């Protein structure tokens, strides 16, 4: 009989590969989601009513859907649209990005609204174009205000990536489950998974908290 610790050590390369996939997915989705959300937030705040309604509908639509259902949708849709099977990684990547973009949009919108309106007027008064005032005046301040929230959402996203379990993509939790089932060690392996997730998320949230304190002053 192998001890639990030995089992974990022995399967460490496999588990780390899974953790790597979880982190990679988190990173790609965070970057893609924030970029997409920036566009959506600007559309939402634009004077154009049609575009603003469109963006709002997108956000409300994805915010009222469970993430698992979105994952199911794209697991089925992506191969159908492309016309050939693409592994579950790409369909999960697309599902998460579209889903998270809706959540990031609300954060970015609030961040832009948190910059006082006088800033925009002053920028316009000095002759900056709309694009310039966004680029040099509004967005830098908005992003500074919303960084803690974006980072916190990133931690939530990292936790959410565990849901790729439903399409058997080998993220950290799925890898843990594979080892646990092969070796018949559900108890110790799931406790191990919980400890690892907790350690990562707790340390990250402490870091965000420190950052927040420094930024607020």
């Amino acid at each position: 009989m192998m001890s639990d610790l030995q089992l974990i050590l022995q399967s460490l390369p496999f588990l780390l590969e899974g953790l790597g996939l979880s982190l990679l997915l988190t990173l790609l989705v965070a970057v893609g989601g924030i970029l997409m959300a920036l566009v959506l937030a600007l559309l939402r705040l634009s004077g154009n009513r049609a575009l603003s309604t469109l963006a709002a509908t997108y956000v409300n639509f994805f915010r009222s859907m469970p993430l698992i259902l979105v994952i199911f949708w794209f697991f089925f849709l992506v191969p159908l649209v492309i016309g050939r099977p693409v592994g579950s990684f790409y369909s999960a990547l697309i599902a998460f990005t579209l889903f998270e973009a809706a959540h990031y949009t609300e954060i970015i919108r609030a961040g832009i609204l948190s910059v006082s309106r006088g800033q925009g007027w002053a920028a316009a008064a000095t002759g900056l174009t709309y694009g310039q005032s966004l680029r040099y005046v509004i967005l830098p301040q908005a992003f500074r205000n919303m960084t803690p929230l974006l980072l916190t959402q990133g931690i939530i996203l990292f936790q959410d990536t565990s849901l790729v379990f439903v399409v058997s993509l080998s993220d950290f939790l799925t890898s843990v489950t594979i080892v646990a089932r092969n070796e018949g060690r559900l108890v110790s392996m799931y406790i191990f998974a919980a400890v690892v997730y907790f350690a990562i998320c707790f340390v990250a949230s402490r870091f965000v908290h420190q950052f927040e304190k420094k930024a607020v002053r």
Partner: protein
Amino acid sequence: MEYNWDWSILVQEPYLWWLITGTGWTLAVSAAAWCIAVVLGTLIGIARTLPNRFVAGIATAYTELFRNVPLLVQLFLWYFVAPEILPAPMGHWIKRDLPLPEFATAVVGLGLYTAARVSIQVRAGIQSLRRGLAMAGYAQGMTVAQVYRHILLPVAFRVVIPPFTTEFLTVFKNSSLALTIGVLELTAQSGQISEYSFHSFEAFTAATAIYILITMTVAAAMSLVERRLPAVA
């Protein structure tokens, strides 16, 4: 893109029944978990603001523990791990005699997880009150319990009602995770219809429509309730 459309499968047997029972389980899991979350979350949120450091510390530890482990992992812990590491008689009872084990586990897991989120809102609600309120209470010679019962909670309650209802929508969506431990709720049923009938598009559309419909109904009810609440002083 080739796809064989047939919307009529949604009203055929047994698929229509699957959608109905799926919606029923989703609502049952959500409602039960929400009740646990609101009661426990309120207690923990209050505990976090108490002057007693020890109690506040334990409550904070609860919140940190439950919000830093993914919900899916928590469900697996309750479902696969808890019956094994609990004292033997309790473990046996869970494995043999617990009625609807998947449902009960999902409700407990989801409820305890959401309680952590609720506690954050309750704590923020209490802390958003002016400190003078509590001080005035203590100056009157009120005990800690009296200050909470007669001053802080009635005012804070008004502040946290909207987040409570929002939290229902979160639980409602998160209830889909129950499918991983075998609860045949709405998302699971739509997946099952898709597998049996090969009409994934119709199945997922039906589930999506039901989720959106219920979300919109709850949101509408929510704004109705909020309008009836007295304004925050």
